[in-house]
């Protein structure tokens, strides 16, 4: 196969589509999404390097590779970077790319608003990182930045102010993007695509973006309050404003946890069902559970405040523990899909399969920390650090890589290498678990989080050495992934067909990469009769008149 062969002939694109200015002023949702996803992926590598410095410092007791305050800056930018600038943008921008395709729409609703969202996000990211150039260094009050510590009296310096402005702008941009995705899914669907024929991934973005619209404005208010307090630090001598900030913040910051989770439930559902060769089992139950989950997510924020002595712990514990019902229903769908499947273990499938038990560790420990008497002991310890690294790194990150390997051929027209993909996968599995499992133990041993160093007598040394070794393996895995992408793009040896995985949803019916308006004369929109339209067609062609899937409960 020559390097220039394309999977299918296409009309030449209009002149100038490839230029930088065309990219930077685009109204094509695919390009807006790729700009956002590309920025977030680059920042993932940057804040990942910060984590390596953190782990290097913690490997042995009484190390001072960096000063305490630089360490505090590193964990602040690592944590807030991963949450505000990496995983949340990826969760939302995946929808910007995929939802118009999956609902058979030629474009996203309000593309300029989505593009404005990207620019705000990019500007916010630059402003946050510009803190490294200021005299007193970057922000260092942690990703939740509680006052009075984050006020100008206790954290002087421009870094913290820049962080507040940057978070405000980036999150405002994400709200705009989320709104356009929601608008597209609800009002811009193509012919035949009813609500209950939207793929699971699209449904997961509907639930996600409802939470974004409902909860993210609260963060804007919280950042406004912090900004006000930096000008008038007297404000945060009053308990009302300190505890009020925590409520405003967590009203955003618990739903954001599910914003960073739901789209990957959708991704894993799509990948599992594709490589199981069957419809996702329990589609309707999963849709309902996502919506219930999203609604309940707005009522649980106070479980981050059990140890404040100023929250209604029984109430927040009740709502938090009830979330195990919708979460359990989603897991039922994952398992039942695999149980009746004809399984092909391609790289996206490996990442999706590992997501299932690994995220489960995060979910089950989540029920533990929703229990006040357990939370009093483990909150602000490494147990919590382990808990949400299992949700975000062992969970969402594996969902991100599943999505990456699954849709990379669609977005670029190039296949990634399977062998390197497997190395990437296995190194990441080993690295992730070796890095984060010991942290549960450290927390139970009494190691507080955000500890720049510890003493030899604390008894934290062995587990920290193990954790650092795991981080190195994890980083090696990510490096293999980078090599995979660079070689695929550089040498262009493996052009991707339109449908490399025998996919079920509409994006696989168009070319790789899709034309500017998603479907054209060469790739018309196929008829849509269920949430897996391409599987319907295949079954219909394969067994004409023999067997009606509706008899087996298939949605028609």
């Amino acid at each position, binding site marked *: 196969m020559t390097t220039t062969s394309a999977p299918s002939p296409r009309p030449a694109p209009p002149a100038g589509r490839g230029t930088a200015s065309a990219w930077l002023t685009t109204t094509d949702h695919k390009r807006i999404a790729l700009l956002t996803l590309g920025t977030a992926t680059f920042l993932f590598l940057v804040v990942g390097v910060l984590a390596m410095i953190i782990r290097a410092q913690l490997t042995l007791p009484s190390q001072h590779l960096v000063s305490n305050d630089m360490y505090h800056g590193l964990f602040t930018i690592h944590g807030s970077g991963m949450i505000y600038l990496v995983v949340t943008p990826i969760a939302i921008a995946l929808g910007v790319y995929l939802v118009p395709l999956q609902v058979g729409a030629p474009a996203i609703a309000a593309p300029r608003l989505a593009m404005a969202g990207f620019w705000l996000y990019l500007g916010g990211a630059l402003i946050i990182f510009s803190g490294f150039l200021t005299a007193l260094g970057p922000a260092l009050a*942690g990703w939740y930045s509680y006052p009075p510590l984050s006020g100008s009296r*206790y954290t002087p310096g421009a870094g913290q102010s820049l962080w507040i402005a940057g978070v405000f702008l980036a999150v405002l941009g994400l709200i705009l993007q989320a709104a356009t995705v929601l608008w597209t899914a609800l009002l811009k669907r193509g012919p035949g695509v009813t609500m209950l024929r939207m793929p699971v991934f699209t449904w997961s973005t509907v639930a996600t973006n409802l939470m974004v619209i409902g909860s993210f404005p609260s963060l804007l208010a919280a950042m406004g309050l912090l900004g006000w307090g930096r000008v008038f630090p007297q404000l945060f001598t009053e308990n009302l404003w300190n505890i009020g900030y925590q409520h405003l913040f967590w009203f955003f910051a618990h739903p954001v946890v599910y914003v960073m989770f739901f789209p990957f439930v959708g991704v894993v559902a799509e990948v599992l069902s594709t490589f199981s060769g069957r419809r996702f089992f329990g589609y309707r139950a999963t849709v309902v559970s996502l919506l219930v989950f999203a609604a309940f997510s707005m009522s649980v924020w106070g479980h981050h405040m059990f140890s404040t002595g100023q929250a209604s712990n029984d109430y927040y514990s009740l709502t938090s523990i*009830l979330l195990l019902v919708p979460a359990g229903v989603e897991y039922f769908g994952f398992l039942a899909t*695999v149980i009746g499947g004809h399984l092909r273990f391609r790289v996206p499938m490996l990442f999706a399969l590992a997501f*299932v038990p690994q995220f489960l560790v995060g979910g089950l420990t989540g029920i533990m920390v929703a*229990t006040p008497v357990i939370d009093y002991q483990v909150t602000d310890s490494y147990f919590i650090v382990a808990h949400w690294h299992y949700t975000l790194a062992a969970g969402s990150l594996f969902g991100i890589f599943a999505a990456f390997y699954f849709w990379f051929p669609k977005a670029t027209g190039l296949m990634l290498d399977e062998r390197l993909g497997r190395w990437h996968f296995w190194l990441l599995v080993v690295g992730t678990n070796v890095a984060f499992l010991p942290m549960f133990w450290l927390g139970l041993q009494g190691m507080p989080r*955000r500890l720049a160093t510890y*003493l030899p007598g604390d008894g934290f040394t062995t587990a920290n050495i193990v954790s650092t070794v795991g981080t190195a393996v994890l980083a090696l895995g990510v490096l293999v992934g980078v090599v995979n992408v660079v070689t695929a793009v550089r040498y262009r040896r493996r052009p991707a067909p339109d449908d490399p995985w025998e996919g079920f949803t509409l994006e696989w019916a168009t070319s790789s990469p899709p034309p500017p308006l998603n479907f054209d004369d060469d790739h018309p929109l196929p008829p849509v009769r269920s949430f897996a339209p391409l599987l319907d067609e295949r079954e219909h062609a394969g067994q004409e008149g023999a067997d009606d899937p509706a008899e087996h409960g298939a949605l028609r």
Partner: protein
Amino acid sequence: MSIRGIFDDIFLLELSIAGAVFVVITVLLVVFLVRRRAGAGRPASSRADNIVLEVSYAVALLGIAVFLVVVTAQANHRQQQMQAQFRGAPDVVRVDVTAFQWCWRFQHLDGPASTTGTCQEDPATRPTLVVPIGRPVELRMTSHDVVHALWIPDLALKSDVYPDHTNSLAVTFDHAGTWLGRCSEFCGTHHPTMDFYVRAVPEQEYQQYLASGSPA
């Protein structure tokens, strides 16, 4: 039963349930990964739903959730009642705790004794709170500047400490010993070394300490 004992019980209960759920799901997954691999030649099922099974499963999950909510709320109430009893006891020892960047000050209300330190890496610079064995101790905590948190890991005792607000923890030390306390809410530059000790001593020694301001 102590506060630590209640934590241990519930932690063990939830760890067992979580462990069982993890094992069941992982074993199911692995077994079917092998049985349903493409090479095994079983065709994919075309079944997309089983509403009866799904609804009954969701109801069963709801049952488990309600059980957990009840058990954990009861445990929380037991801890709160225990603390309320300690606070109301006639022989309660009251200590005002002030957290500041970056150390602690302990002021006994029964006598003139007060202690503080500078909380550097050298343990000698950390303050030691002296309390009597067997009597309830109430710590009334406030902060001089930012949010801190008082944590004694071995006793499973923790509370955030706020400026312009007082939180209270109550506990009884039933044997002699020394416990490490830490600040567990990030509070700035020297947060990592903001440690203290609690030392439980016999009543007589405690009275001497109160009178003299230093432990015998």
